[in-house]
C-alpha cells in the first residue's frame, strides 16, 4: 500500500472515471422539509455514487413507504427506481437481484419501514446476505403521519407533545450484527465525512450492508427531550473510529480523515480498502460478539455509537450461494430457459 494523502477539499466536479459529471447522479428536487436529515443523506448518496464512478444505469434504487422512502426520487435519476409497499422493499430487492445479479441495489428505508412493519423482511434479507446497500434514515418517528413514535425511539425520549416513549428501542444495528448482515455501520446525517466513507465502503461490499443513519426529523423530533435531535446526537455521538476509504481504482488517494498511525485495514470485495483508525483500541469490527457487547453498552450508557460496527468479507452473498448462471437470469434467452424436447420426453416416460 502506498502512502496515503488526505484529500482536504473536494474540487469542482470534473467527470468521474466513467466520464460522467455529477449531474446524472442527481434526481428531482426534494419535497422533504428544509433541514431534514434525509436530504443530507441524499446528497451523500449522489457524491458517493459519482465519486465511485458507478454506472447509474446498472443501479436499482428501492424503497418502502415513508418520508425516507420518498427520497430515491431525489437522486440517481438515471437509475431504475421502485417505491414499493410499506416495509417490504427487501423482498422486492431480493427478487430484482435474483433476476439480475449484476445490478447494484440501493435500498432506502426508514425506522418505521424497517423496524416495525418491515422487521420480518429486514431480518430475512440479512439472514440471506442479499447483496444490497440498505440505508435506514432513522429519526425515531413517523414523519409522514405526523410524528408518532417509531420502534427505534429510545425509552423516555419525548415526543413534541411532551409524551415520553414507554417502550424500549429496537437497535437495528444490533439486530443486523446478530442476524447475518455482513457490513453494519451507524452514522449521523450531520457528519458528512464519516457518512461518506461509510457509504463508499458499503458500495464496495458484496452482501447486506446495513447503514443506520441517525437523521433528525426537523418538524416532529428535533426538540429538547428527543434523543434523535441534532443537538442530542451531536452531544452523544461516540465514534468508534476515524474512517478512511481507499477506492480500488485510485489507490493513491485516501478519501476520509484517517491520519497515518494505528490503523486497521479491511480489504473489500471490489478491491477497495477500508482504513480505520481506532479511537477505541480494543474494538475489533470483525468480531460479532465484541460488536454486540459494545452496542449493548452504548445503549445502556445513552451513547450514539457510530462508525463501522461490523464487517465480514468472507460470507457468500445470496446470489453467490445460489450459484446462478453467469448471465443474469433476466437476460437468458428461450434457448436456455426452455429445456429441449428430449427432457420432456424423459419425464413423460417416467410418468407412463
Amino acid at each position, binding site marked *: 500500500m502506498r502512502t496515503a494523502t488526505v484529500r482536504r477539499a473536494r474540487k469542482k466536479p470534473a467527470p468521474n472515471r466513467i466520464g460522467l459529471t455529477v449531474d446524472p447522479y442527481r434526481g428531482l428536487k426534494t419535497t422533504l422539509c428544509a433541514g431534514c436529515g434525509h436530504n443530507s443523506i441524499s446528497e451523500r448518496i449522489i457524491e458517493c455514487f459519482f465519486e465511485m464512478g458507478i454506472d447509474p444505469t446498472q443501479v436499482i434504487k428501492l424503497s418502502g413507504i415513508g418520508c425516507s422512502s420518498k427520497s430515491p426520487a431525489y437522486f440517481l435519476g438515471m437509475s431504475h427506481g421502485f*417505491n414499493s409497499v410499506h416495509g417490504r422493499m427487501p423482498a422486492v430487492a431480493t427478487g*430484482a*437481484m435474483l433476476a439480475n445479479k449484476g445490478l447494484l441495489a440501493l435500498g432506502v428505508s426508514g425506522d418505521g419501514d424497517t423496524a416495525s412493519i418491515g422487521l*420480518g423482511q429486514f431480518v430475512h434479507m440479512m439472514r440471506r446476505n442479499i447483496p444490497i446497500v440498505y440505508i435506514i434514515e432513522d429519526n425515531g418517528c413517523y414523519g409522514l403521519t405526523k410524528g408518532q413514535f417509531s420502534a427505534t425511539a429510545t425509552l423516555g425520549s419525548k415526543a413534541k407533545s411532551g409524551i415520553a416513549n414507554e417502550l424500549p428501542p429496537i437497535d437495528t444495528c444490533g439486530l443486523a450484527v446478530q442476524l447475518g448482515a455482513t457490513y453494519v455501520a451507524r452514522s449521523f446525517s450531520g457528519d458528512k465525512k464519516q457518512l461518506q466513507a461509510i457509504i463508499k465502503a458499503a458500495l464496495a461490499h458484496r452482501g447486506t450492508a446495513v447503514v443506520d443513519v441517525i437523521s433528525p426529523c426537523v418538524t416532529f423530533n428535533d426538540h429538547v427531550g428527543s434523543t434523535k435531535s441534532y443537538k442530542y446526537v451531536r452531544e452523544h455521538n461516540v465514534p468508534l473510529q476515524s474512517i478512511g476509504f481507499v477506492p480500488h481504482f485510485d489507490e493513491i488517494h485516501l478519501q476520509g480523515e484517517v491520519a497515518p498511525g494505528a490503523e486497521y485495514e479491511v480489504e473489500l470485495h471490489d478491491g477497495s480498502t477500508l482504513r480505520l483508525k481506532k479511537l477505541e483500541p480494543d474494538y475489533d469490527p470483525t468480531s460479532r460478539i465484541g460488536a454486540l457487547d459494545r452496542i449493548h453498552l452504548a445503549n445502556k450508557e445513552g451513547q450514539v455509537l457510530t462508525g463501522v460496527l461490523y464487517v465480514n468479507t468472507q460470507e457468500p452473498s445470496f446470489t453467490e450461494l445460489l450459484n446462478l448462471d453467469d448471465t443474469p437470469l433476466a437476460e*437468458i434467452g428461450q434457448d436456455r430457459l426452455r429445456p429441449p424436447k428430449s427432457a420432456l420426453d424423459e419425464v413423460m416416460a417416467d410418468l407412463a
Partner: protein
Amino acid sequence: MQAVSPSPTGETAYQAHSEIVNDFSIQVATVNGSGSQSSNLVLLRALFHMGVPVSGKNLFPSNIAGLPTWYTIRANKAGFTGRKKEIDLLVAMNAETALRDVQGLEPGRTVVYDEPLALDSVRDDLCYYPVPFDRLTVPVCPVPRLRKLVRNMVYDGVLAWLLGIDMEEIRGAINKQFSTKPKAAAINWNAAVAGFEWSARNLVKRDPYRLERMDANRGKIIVEGNAAAALGAVFGGVSVITWYPITPSSSLAEAAQGYLKRFRTDQETGKATFAIVQAEDELASIGMAVGAGWAGARAMTTTAGPGISLMSEFVGLAHFAEIPVVLIDVQRMGPSTGLPTRTSQGDLISAADLSHGDTIHPLLIPSTPEECFDFSARAFDVAERLQTPVFVMLDLDLGMNYWVADKFEYPDWPMDRGKLLTEADIERLRGDWGRYRDIDGDGITYRTVPGNRHPQAAYFARGTGHDEDANYSEREDDWIRNLSRIKRKLEGAREWLPEPVIDDRPEATVGLLAAGTSHEPVRESRTQLRDEYGFETAYCRVRGWPFSEAVERFIASHDRVYVVDQNRDGQLRRLLRRQFPEDYSHLRSVCYFGGLPLDARTITDAIVEKEQL
C-alpha cells in the same frame, strides 16, 4: 373402536350381484403415517397398467401421523374418473373409523377388513372378507418397527386375488414405487404375495367386482396436477420461483425445484438458469416475485387461499405499476384455515379482484393435468404480454390427486416477452419514450427493465399516482386516464387467454357451465342426465377470465344455464353475472362445498330437482 352388537340372526342378507367388470370404486381407510400412500399408489399404477381408466383421490387429514385417511380409487371402463359418490369396495384398516365406514355403505357392497375388527357383526347386507393382516405381515417383515408400513401392502395382494389384478403389474408398480430402495421393494413384494396367496387358499369369491385388461391408457401418463403445473412452468421458461410452504401448493414448488435442478442446471459448473427461494412468508414470496418480474425475470409464486390473502397488497401494486408475475393458486377449503386438506373453488372471486381499489386480474383455469402444464407455461406469456399479475387456478383435487392424462405436448411456440424495449429501441426513439404511454391503443404500454444501459431507459415504478411518463402525479386527469387504460388493457386480456370449450347440442335448451375440476363430474353428469332422464344438455367449460365472447353467446343461446361451482356462494356465477349483467336472470347455481372432490351424482340430482325431470 366402539362395541357393536352382533347380527341378530346368523343369517346374511347379502345377495351377490351379477358380475361388474371395470366399473367400481375402492376406498381404503387407514391411519395416516402408516405407509398406506405407497400401497394405494401401487394399486393405482397396477390398474393403470392394466389399461383401465382410473383415478386415485386422497382424502387426508391436516396431520402427519395417527389420524384417519381415506384413499379412493375409481376404475371406470367408460372413462369417467371423477369421484364416485358410492363406495363399492371398502378396505377397512382403521379401527377408529371402521364402524362408521361400514355403516355408510350402500347395501350389497363389499368389505375387506382387518380380522380382529369383527366388522361382519355390524350389519348383514354386505359381503365380508376378514383378513388376518398382522399374522400375514410378521413372516415377511422381520423388523417389527417396519411392520406397520408393510402391512398395508398385504391388502394389495388380497385385492389382486379378489379383483383379478395381474400380480406382475403389482410387482412392476412396487419396483417403481421403491425404485431407489431395492430392499424395501423386496419386502413389500413379499407382503403383496402373502396377501395374494393367503386369499387364494382361504377366501371364496362372493362379490361381483372384477377387473379385466383394457387398452385405454396407451401412450398415457399418470400424474398429479401440481407436478404438471410445475413442469409447465419449467418448460414455460420460469426463471424465479418464490414460495412459502402451504398445503396444497407445496408439492408444486417442490416438484418444480426437482425438475429445475434436473434440466436447468449446467452439468459441469452446477450453475443454474433459475432461482427458487423458500421465502419467510407469503408477503415476501410475492414481493420477491414482483421484484424479479420488474427486473425482467419470468417470475412466479405458488400458494393457496390464505397466502393469496397475504399477497393482496403486493398484487395491487403489481397491477398498478404494471409488473408481470404469475401466481399459481392451488385452492383449498376456506375461510380461514378452513379445511386445508380439502378441495374447493373458493378463491375465484378473491383472485379475480385481489387487492384494494379497482383491480382485476386474468385467471387461467385448468381442468386436467394437460391444461395444468399448458396453462402454467402460457401464463408467463400472458403476464409479460399484459404486464400484470396472472393467476393459474388449480385446486387440491387437481393438484394433489393422481390423474390419467395424455402425454404433454412440447411447447413449440416462441416465448412472448411482451413490449420490452432494448437499448437499441430507446436509441431509435431518441430517448423519447414514456413507460405508460399507450402507443398502440391496446392499453398495453412499453417497458424497460433494470440493467438496460441506455441513459434514458430508466423509469420509476411506484404504487402512487403517476403520469404517462411515470412521474409522480396526483392530477385527476392523469389518474382517470391511467386507470381507464389499465381497465381497457385487461378487458383485452381475453384475447390472450384460453378459449372456452363448448359442446353445443342443437336440441338442448339447457346448458351447463363449469370450470376447473368440475369438468369430470359435469361430463359424467351429462351422460347420467341423458341416459337416465333423456335430458340433453349443452356444455360450456370456461378456461379463462375475463370471459370471452363465446361464453356470452353460449349463455344467450340457452333458456337456462346451470353454473356449477365448488363453493357456497356461486363464485363462478358471480363472475359471469358481473360481466354479463343482462344475461343474469337465467343463470342458476349448482353449488357443492363439502370439501370432497365433486361427484357427478350431486350435479345430476340438483338438476333433476330444478328441472323437475
